[in-house]
């Protein structure tokens, strides 16, 4: 992988979860609320269709 600028590469800055306190700033903990998002279908691309195989030619009996 290409080198990333040191200041924006979290692997080198060693960020971790709860104790890091340095995640993207989206607000203070006291304004958080938890929601459950349960889509009927996950928003993922449909798998590519399997290639259609041509049926092998059957030998025609003489």
């Amino acid at each position: 992988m290409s080198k990333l600028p040191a200041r924006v590469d979290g692997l080198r800055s060693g960020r971790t979860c709860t104790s890091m306190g340095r995640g993207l700033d989206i607000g203070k903990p006291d304004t958080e609320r938890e929601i459950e998002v349960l889509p009927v279908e996950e928003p993922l691309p449909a798998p590519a269709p399997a290639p259609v195989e041509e049926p092998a030619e059957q030998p025609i009996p003489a």
Partner: protein
Amino acid sequence: MSRTPTSIEPVLGWRIWHVDPTPGGPRLRSWAHSTEWPAGQKVEAHCRSILGLALPAWSHAAPRKGHACGVYALRDRAAAETMLHELGEAGPAFNRLPAALGRVSLWGRVVENVAGWRAQFAYPYDLVLFGADDEIAAGLRRDYAVDVALA
């Protein structure tokens, strides 16, 4: 009794990514952790806490209220653009990777806050590329099956 609000519509937030032009095709990488976003598969958040890794009893499913884990997304495009410009200018030009700005679908357990969300699952929704070319755009379009435009 308090119940967690439920939605069946994925949340759409804004993110930025590095675009890593690997030989197998371009791949999106998280800006903060350099985690690869696999093409065609959802990203699932995990707690990276050292304590959680060392002590299974301390680990938890991500995201969790009051913690910092989860897949992040911002509520406003303008905030993501500002972040892109600030972080993009932080590093030297010679080793910069192309960058992507775009919307991301979030679902599963989601922690909402005033400026954005932290989510359990995520997948890109659409992308605008900076510092990339047509070949990279076509590769991302093909592999991630999302709309991709060049800035």
